[in-house]
């Protein structure tokens, strides 16, 4: 793309419509149609948001890791990968915050506590902080290549960190609460709506990343297009 166009295409518009439909269905079902859970009552509705957010957050960080690897691999090196990695991490941090907040609210009403040192929760919290650091490093400045190389290396180090954190926390606190969904089991329309939610959130993720990534490209292009103007100005500086 060589022009400063909008960030949307026919594809992303279709994707956007599908996302809205999916989220609409999830809202209608989750808030109106679905019955109260036998044990948790209305609070179980939080899970329709919580589980897809958590899934998305992990998906997003996986994508960041893969895109960073693709950037560093000489044969596939392209700034496109860097922008995808950055966009995905931004969206991932957003959804991880959502997952942590909904998760701890749900924990409060079902377990009676906002937080428990279970390995899944703790790993998630560490991942959250790690990617906030990653985004801070992306903002450090310097050339686009510098930003890309530095942040790609950092993302791969984060990939190294996550299993180590997970192992250490799960050895430290081996007992954790069984997942309610796995235990109780969702049936019929509930299960269907649950999957609608997962799909809608995934579409939302793809839609957000595509737009964000294109916005980043336009930003980079503005930086670059300024160069010719700046060069002309620079050449016209006069000798004293």
């Amino acid at each position, binding site marked *: 793309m060589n022009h400063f166009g909008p960030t949307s295409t026919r594809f992303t518009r279709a994707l956007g419509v599908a996302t809205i439909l999916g989220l609409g269905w999830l809202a209608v079902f989750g808030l109106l149609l679905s019955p109260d859970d036998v044990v948790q009552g209305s609070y179980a509705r939080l899970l329709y948001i919580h589980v897809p957010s958590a899934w998305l957050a992990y998906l997003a960080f996986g994508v960041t890791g893969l895109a960073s690897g693709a950037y560093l691999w000489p044969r596939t090196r392209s700034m496109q990968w860097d922008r995808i990695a950055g966009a995905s991490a931004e969206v991932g941090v957003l959804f991880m915050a959502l997952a942590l907040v909904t998760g701890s609210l749900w924990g409060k009403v079902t377990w009676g506590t906002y937080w428990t040192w279970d390995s899944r929760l703790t790993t998630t919290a560490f991942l959250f902080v790690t990617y906030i650091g990653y985004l801070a490093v992306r903002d450090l400045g310097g050339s686009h290549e510098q930003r890309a190389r530095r942040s790609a290396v950092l993302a791969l180090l984060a990939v190294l960190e996550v299993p180590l954190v997970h192992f250490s926390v799960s050895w430290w606190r081996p007992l954790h609460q069984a997942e309610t969904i796995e235990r109780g089991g969702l049936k019929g329309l509930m299960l269907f709506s649950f999957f609608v939610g997962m799909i809608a959130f995934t579409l939302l993720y793809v839609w957000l990343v595509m737009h964000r990534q294109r916005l980043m490209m336009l930003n980079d292009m503005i*930086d670059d297009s300024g*160069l010719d103007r700046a060069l002309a100005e620079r050449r016209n500086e006069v*000798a004293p």
Partner: protein
Amino acid sequence: MEPAVELVDVVAVLGAFPVLAGATLRVERSEIVLLRGPNGAGKTSLLRLCAGLLPVERGTATVLGVDLVHDRTAVRTRVGLLGHANGLYADLTVADNVRFWGATVGASAEEVNAAMERMGLADRLADVSVGRLSAGQRRRTALACLIARRAELWLLDEPHAGLDAAGRDELDATLRSAAVAGATVIVASHELERAGSLATRVVQVVGGCIREAR
């Protein structure tokens, strides 16, 4: 033999600002070239680019036969850059510093001692912490480190600044003998009279461009 430096229409940027805006320069081996020009003209950036520290945004650049566009790290062991900072460890002595920087290229103890003697640091100052030295003495130490590194291309940014009369004479003599020994020297300086008599050629840098080559 290929020239020491060959730049063609080189553009280099810091952030979004083009510090070099199309610089073309050819420097033969054993030349002593003086860069002059107003503050902010791009002299320092030109030196940093030749040292492989600043990436080439557009144009072509070859230093000591190494193509900087493709690999700007390969040239680094062969050039010596003295920038505004001295690159010294304030807690170490003069001798420690020269020994350390010499050792990064595998210089022998004799070469290190010779470098310190050359800059008049061998006796009294050798065991003094760099942190206790005056600005001029630090500059001498940095120059001794550079000599110990046996560079093929010397890139010096305002090397005369802060040096006393004796130090300037020692510096000039050092640069001349380095050039005689086959090294190439590029000096950015405002000390026109002194550096002008030293240089084999003067190059004017203005607005990120080379105005008068030759």
